[in-house]
């Protein structure tokens, strides 16, 4: 009784497999072009993979190149509904009728589906736009209507491709709460670029890069202990990959980074990562001498304000220091500096 996915789309270089338990919400993270929308398209039946097998509750939806007979259940018959990256509201229907489209197609009465649609419009906060045509909506309003339409379809498996895109800060927290409530009992695949969405809405995270799964697991776990560069980026953590040599991480550039290895203890020669938050980094202009700390020489690329602090970025790493400290150090893009991190602040684990 789960959703099982396994498919290869050769010309997009997307080849991966995963399962989802009933009622589980999985966040799909990954850089642009990683293959997230491709996975959703295959699941919704909009794209036939080269080889693959997709089943929902034991029922095969797409089978190709397996020992079973090839099979492709048409999109409308899958009980899978998809909110695509573009809103694509039906231009000839009012906003209300757009949202009522799903219930109506499922066979609900006209008045019943309208009532349901009305309810969903209220949830996303655009009930007063019910009678408008899609062409008369702003970008964010259209996005909200599309979210309402996808939710109203009430499928067995719900696929959401960046549902919070184009929304303003005033509505995001409220909609996030709505989704949190609505998605709780459903089986959902949620594509997002936002770690907070992943943390709050998803039980599990799957990180894709270059068409492959590079990291996955419990949402908070994955975001706290990222194993891939992209996951670290989304979690806002610094990551230095290397090999475990002589109780330290040896990077490809030949640098040694000391940290405290977690459980299980890595073995000599294992590929490992050193991970630490920007707030654990102190910035100096000169290398501080003779202490058990890591000092990495870096070139600063830019400075950003970040929640009252200043984030100092280099090509690979970032540090968070007070505005005062930044002013005292007289940092500017192009400056050379040292990032100093206490070994105890660095987590090291195998990948």
């Amino acid at each position: 009784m789960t959703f099982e996915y396994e498919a290869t789309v050769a010309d997009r270089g997307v080849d991966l497999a995963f399962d989802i338990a009933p009622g589980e919400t999985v966040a799909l993270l990954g850089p642009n072009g990683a293959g997230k929308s491709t996975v959703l398209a295959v699941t919704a039946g909009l794209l036939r993979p080269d080889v693959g097998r997709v089943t929902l509750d034991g029922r095969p939806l797409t089978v190709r190149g397996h020992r079973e007979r090839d099979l492709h259940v048409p999109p409308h018959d899958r009980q899978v509904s998809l909110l695509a990256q573009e809103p694509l509201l039906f231009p000839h229907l009012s906003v209300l009728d757009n949202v009522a489209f799903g219930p109506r197609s499922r066979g609900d009465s006209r008045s019943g589906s309208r009532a349901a649609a009305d309810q969903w419009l209220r949830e996303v906060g655009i009930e007063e736009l019910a009678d408008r045509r899609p062409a008369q909506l702003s970008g964010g309003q259209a996005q909200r209507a599309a979210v309402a339409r996808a939710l109203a379809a009430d499928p067995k498996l719900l696929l959401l491709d960046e549902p919070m895109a184009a929304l303003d800060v005033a509505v995001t927290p409220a909609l996030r709460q709505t989704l949190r409530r609505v998605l709780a009992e459903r089986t959902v695949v949620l594509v997002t670029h936002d770690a907070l969405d992943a943390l709050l809405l998803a039980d599990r995270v799957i990180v894709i890069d270059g068409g492959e799964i590079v990291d996955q697991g419990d949402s908070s776990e994955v975001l706290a202990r990222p194993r891939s560069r992209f996951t670290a980026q989304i979690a806002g953590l610094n990551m230095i990959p290397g090999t475990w040599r002589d109780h330290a991480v040896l990077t490809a550039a030949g640098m040694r980074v000391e940290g405290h290895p977690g459980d299980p203890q890595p073995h000599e020669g294992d590929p490992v990562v050193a991970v630490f938050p920007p707030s654990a980094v102190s910035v100096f202009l000169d290398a501080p001498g003779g202490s058990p700390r890591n000092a990495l020489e870096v070139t600063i690329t830019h400075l950003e304000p970040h929640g009252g602090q200043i984030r100092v970025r280099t090509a690979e790493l970032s540090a968070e220091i007070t505005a005062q400290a930044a002013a005292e150090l007289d940092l500017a893009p192009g400056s050379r500096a040292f990032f100093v991190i206490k070994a105890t602040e660095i987590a090291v684990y195998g990948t």
Partner: protein
Amino acid sequence: MTGQPVRVGVPTWIFFPAVAGAAFVLLPLVAIVLRTPWSRFFDLLGSQASQEALLLSLRTSGTSTLLCIAFGVPMALVLARTSFRGQGILRSLVLLPLVLPPVVGGIALLYTFGRRGLLGETFEVLGIQVAFSTTAVVLAQTFVAMPFLVVSLEGALRTAGQKYEVVAATLGAGPTTVFRRVTLPLVLPGLASGAVLAFARSLGEFGATITFAGSLQGVTRTLPLEIYLLRETDAQAAVALSLVLVVVAVLVIGFARQGKASL
């Protein structure tokens, strides 16, 4: 008063060929109007033969337009939305009534529905006599007008694309629901212009009708046939009567376009 979306301009030079083209089409119409014996125009309009012909033309063209829609919409849909081996050939074949000289089309219909035709015996057994009846007029018009509807609707279906149909399917709408609630409403302008073309073509149809249906007053003699006959005896009157056809066409087309925003 309200904010107006701005259109992107058309290049100025484009008006020159446009006006030239319009003049080329309109000047002959003006010439006809100028040469029409207006004094006799209304007598002609009042004559029983003209009136019967006009009514018959409207009835048969209307019916054949409906038939074109009933069968042409599915054909356009199949051509635009499925792909199968030999589809290209099928599309060319469906286009053929366009090139076939109408008289040859009429002969082809005789060869099919006539007493000695392909289906003639079947029909004879059933006691149905198709040729030389009003039904034959409708069939002839449908035959020549069908490609117009199919070609223009297929074009509209292709231009409209499938993205909204796909969205509807992911919301759980089956093919029939998608067709009824998404595809049809979206290509309505294309369907309307296809229907107008088909109606106009039916209204002007002459060659296939006279060959396949004959020219019996009140039964198969439509307005173009009446005009043809009148031309034997009174060429000017024939031209005047064809103006009636023009006026009727303008009225019907204009009326049909009332409801729709675009053609």
